[in-house]
């Protein structure tokens, strides 16, 4: 869809309403958190550990303090409140205390009147380290009790979640076909463009106002305040311009640090990470080792899955527990499997901390189970799509956790759709940009072979396992300049996904007004939960709708009072109250008569339950979303280079709320999956990151990402607002295994590790 078409399309729900920040971003005028400014501000910088594991024998800040222009130098001793924080476990020190557990761990802070002064002073802080051998073997951390511990006496296993279904001994006897595989997923980075940054401003009440790019204002607030020794209400957060998130802003980075410095200096403090620092400033996707065994009948029906998944959580827990929960509960994929023995582990090591990233535990498992499905197909002499269709879940199916899918799950039809896409034509050799190697000019068509691969993924939407997941919206309707206007206020983080646009679309549709303002997100309203787990359209969308409904009820009551009769079934349209018979009975301006109607609502999704710690049984998820990819690749089989010719996706989104924004999510998610398939990896050796720059950490360019074909289905989920299904993550799951399957198809290589490198294809 072109922007022109979108512009014509209107601004109600279902239209391709344009995002307010779009033009600003492409013209460079959008104010990101790194552009924040206060006239009297000072600059904060962070001293980080160069070692992945060391005992701190002493910290001497005197020389740094003596540098002219320096306002403060802080260590852990200066943290007035709680010394530890964390999303799920409070295991991460605000500043390292007596040891460091990963390369880049913050040790001390400096505030100075110029960033360069601050950096020079930082270089004068003397830290004594007794360097220790880093603990980097995740598999030993998971399974070998004699492996040394990363956190004192605490077990290295952050979470072990087993899944046990059926009778494995019997299953092994009846399986006619058995395929095994060991897979490895490298450490992917979210690679957002806007580095961690924010501005903390000390307030007169002794508290602090923090302007920051984040994913969840309230969970930041809840972690920051105790460390500052302040009541929650005195730490107020406002969302600043976010330059991408993808999970990397779920954990705190500079938030507490900037607040500490602001409170100490009495001046606004700005912290902006550089690109290299950013690689150490946020968590990454868990690298994983996965061992799978699938048993099937000769006609390709799955009999059992036996699997072990080890996720390396690095030095601190972050959201490792929840990632393990996803990897376990979704670990056999969207297939009916009568017998399952699966063990998922998330562990501590001295590698970089890992946590949330688009796809969240489901990505790693998807690469392994989809690789296995292709092996099953091959062993049974079946088409890869056919074997998937034979085992695909549908509405009413029971997952490995025992949870029954009580919403449409038209997977078989989606797979058929993917197979039915017309094949892209053979690539011409006239333009090297269409060929493997692109402008590297490596092939002009010789040695190039085409391959096709399919994959499907299953992703949970919203928070799972009994979490009290909710969002809050405040909606106010009043007349402004004679026109009815709505103001929507939530704390939901717009991280680029288009939530601001969607909130306005919902209010416009529910309240029948044209003019809608979405107030900046801040903690002046209740929590909206995180902009993650593909949940905000569902949760904050649901909250905005609920608040709009409450406002609408009040307005209709006011209309009834004014007209002196009841208006059953009335609604709001085009600035008017419309009776059930379709006739407008009053304008909103008349009904409001200068008053404002304001309502706040909390929205909750239906309850979920924890997974049984021994059997992994439980109704742990709210909603399931599916995406199917077909990848077509050309591979230069001599040099090992891959050109993805086309990515085609079929996704069921329940209900399309904004077609343009939705396409963007599917393209973006697929591109991130392409990156994981072919190039993106943080190189970690002995706990040390070897490529912390965008010169050396490769993300796909426009030459690497092919055009996409999409088919979007709308099978409404009866439990969800508008029937919608979260859409942002599912494409990230299936794009990776589809591409790898296509490369296998072209080369016959096993390709058990991602990202796939040239040497895995031809020069190994």
């Amino acid at each position, binding site marked *: 869809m072109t922007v022109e078409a979108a512009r014509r399309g209107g601004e109600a729900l279902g239209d391709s309403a344009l995002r307010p920040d779009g033009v600003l971003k492409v013209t460079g005028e959008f104010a990101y958190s790194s552009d924040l400014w206060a006239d009297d501000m000072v600059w904060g910088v962070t001293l980080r550990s160069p070692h992945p594991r060391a005992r701190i024998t002493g910290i001497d800040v005197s020389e740094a303090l003596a540098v002219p222009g320096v306002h403060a130098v802080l260590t852990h001793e200066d943290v007035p409140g709680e010394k530890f924080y964390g999303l799920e476990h409070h295991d991460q020190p605000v500043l390292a205390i007596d040891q460091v557990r990963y390369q880049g761990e913050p040790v001390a802070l400096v505030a100075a009147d110029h960033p360069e002064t601050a950096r020079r002073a930082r270089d004068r802080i003397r830290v004594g380290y007794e360097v220790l051998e880093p603990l980097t073997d995740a598999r030993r951390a998971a399974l070998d009790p004699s492996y040394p511990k990363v956190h004192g006496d605490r077990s290295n296993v952050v979470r072990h979640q087993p899944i046990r279904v059926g009778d494995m001994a019997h299953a092994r006897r009846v399986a006619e076909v058995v395929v095994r595989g060991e897979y490895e997923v490298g450490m992917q980075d979210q690679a957002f463009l806007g580095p961690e940054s924010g501005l903390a401003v000390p307030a007169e009440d002794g508290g602090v106002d923090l302007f920051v790019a984040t994913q969840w204002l309230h969970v930041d607030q809840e972690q920051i305040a105790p460390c500052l020794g302040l009541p929650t209400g005195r730490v107020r957060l406002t969302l600043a311009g976010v330059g991408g998130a993808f999970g990397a802003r779920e954990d705190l980075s500079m938030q507490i640090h900037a607040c500490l410095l602001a409170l100490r200096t009495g001046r606004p403090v700005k912290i902006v990470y550089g690109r290299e620092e950013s690689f150490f400033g946020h968590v990454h996707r868990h690298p994983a080792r996965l061992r799978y065994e699938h048993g099937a009948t000769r006609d390709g029906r799955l009999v059992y899955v036996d699997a072990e998944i080890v996720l390396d959580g690095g030095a601190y827990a972050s959201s490792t527990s929840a990632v393990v929960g996803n990897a376990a509960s979704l670990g056999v994929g969207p297939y009916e499997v009568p017998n399952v023995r699966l063990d998922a582990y998330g562990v501590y090591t001295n590698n970089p901390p890992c946590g949330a990233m688009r796809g969240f535990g489901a990505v790693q498992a998807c690469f392994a189970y989809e690789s296995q499905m292709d092996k099953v197909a091959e062993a049974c002499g079946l088409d890869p799509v056919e074997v998937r269709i034979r085992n695909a879940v549908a509405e009413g199916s029971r997952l490995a956790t025992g949870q029954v899918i009580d919403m449409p799950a038209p997977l078989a039809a989606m797979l058929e759709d993917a197979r039915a896409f017309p094949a892209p034509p053979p690539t011409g050799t006239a333009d090297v940009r269409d060929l493997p190697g692109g402008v590297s000019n490596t092939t002009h068509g010789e040695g190039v072979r085409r391959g096709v691969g399919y994959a499907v993924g299953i992703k949970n939407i919203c928070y799972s396992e009994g979490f009290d997941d909710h969002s809050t919206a405040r909606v106010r309707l009043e007349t402004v300049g004679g026109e009815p206007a709505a103001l929507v206020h939530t704390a939901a983080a717009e991280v680029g996904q288009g939530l601001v646009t969607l909130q306005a679309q919902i209010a416009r549709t529910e309240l029948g007004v044209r003019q809608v303002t979405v107030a900046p997100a801040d903690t002046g309203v209740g929590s909206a939960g995180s902009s993650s787990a593909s949940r905000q359209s569902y949760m904050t969308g649901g909250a905005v709708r609920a608040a709009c409904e409450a406002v609408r009820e009040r307005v209709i009551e006011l209309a009834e009072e004014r007209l002196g009769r009841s208006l059953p079934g009335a609604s709001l349209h085009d600035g008017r109250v419309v009776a059930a018979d379709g006739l407008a009975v009053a304008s909103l301006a008349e009904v409001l008569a200068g008053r404002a109607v304001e309502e706040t609502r909390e929205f909750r999704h239906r309850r979920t339950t924890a997974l049984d710690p021994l059997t992994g049984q439980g109704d742990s998820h709210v909603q399931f979303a599916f995406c199917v990819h077909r990848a077509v690749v050309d591979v230069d089989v001599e040099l090992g*280079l891959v050109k993805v010719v086309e990515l085609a996706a079929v996704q069921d989104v329940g209900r399309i709320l904004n077609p343009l924004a939705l396409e963007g999510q599917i393209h973006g998610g697929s591109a991130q999956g392409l990156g994981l398939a072919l190039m993106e990896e943080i190189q970690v050796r002995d706990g040390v990151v070897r490529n912390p720059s965008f010169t050396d950490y490769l993300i796909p360019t426009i030459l690497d990402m092919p055009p996409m074909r999409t088919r979007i289905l709308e099978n409404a989920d009866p439990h969800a607002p508008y029937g919608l299904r979260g859409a942002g993550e599912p494409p990230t799951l299936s794009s990776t295994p589809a591409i790898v399957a296509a490369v296998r198809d072209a080369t016959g290589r096993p390709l058990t590790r991602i990202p796939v490198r040239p040497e895995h294809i031809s020069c190994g």
Partner: protein
Amino acid sequence: MRPLEYRRAEDPRRAVTAVAGRPGAMFLGAGTNLVDHLKLGVARPDLLVDVSHLPYDKIEPRPGGGLRIGAAVRNSDLAAHPLVRQHYPVLAQALLSGASPQLRNLATTAGNLLQRTRCPYFQDVTTPCNKREPGTGCSALEGYNREHAVLGASEHCVAVHPSDMAVALTVLDAEVRVLGSGGERTIPITELYRLPGDRPDRDTVLKHGDLITAVDLPGLPMAAHSAYRKVRERASYAFALVSVAAAVQVRDGAITDARVAFGGLAHKPWRAYRAEEALRGVRVSAAPGDTLAEATTAAPIAAGGAASTGENAGGTSTVEDLRAAADAELADARPLAHNAFKIPMARNTFVAVLRGLLREEGATR
């Protein structure tokens, strides 16, 4: 970053004097490499003399044939120059395969030649590195060395030179013009770069204060028939894992002269003299169904090796001769723990480049 003094050079000789007389002084081109190094602490000069505005921004034909390329000519301008594209396509292709358009718009010819290795340990000042700090050791030897050298390395350093342009210049027998304290001199590009030996801190034979003023290309008819190919993991904007620059001359169905250089394999662009020797006399068969003409028809992948694309059943083929020539050069290659793949990759790239050139040759005859 340390405080430093910045001066814009007004005049070449004074620039040389300024840098030669001060151990902590450096020339600055466009800064696309050096400024990164200032930030990372890899380079710690106390004076930068900006030479990017000196009048070395021209590309001129030389009286006896060939071209003179000013040291301050931007990479984009050099790649786009009609004479370069016509007479030295390998050079234009190498430049265009490097960096990004924005970087090429800035980067200078001299700066490109003297850019430093991408070895991750060289760029990380917290790790030992003999190139950055002589005598501290080489972290890459036992560390992460997937991108490192397989030819000509030493126990002191296994880094590779990152420039694509320099690989092309190496097959063109370019000469580098230098102005030093002792006056002007000329250094063949094949002698400009050093192997690491026990002095990996020195990339080149230049002395402190030597200013590169130009690169001279000889008139070289066979260079009109040249090509550059680069293998990397993304379609643009990444350094080479392996690259090959080559020029060939064919007379009466046989190769009479060939020049080949490898990038990504060694501390310097690796001129493949042994391969060149082996190529001379190779017969170029052009019969229908010949390996060169039909190389696109894919053959099955040989287990554990590269595709056997282009092999005709039985008998020797040109492709086999090409492979043998590559192997002659790569016989001394010594892989490290993570880069053994570079050897077959270099061989396959070599074959691909020469096959492409020979096929074009066949088509033009």
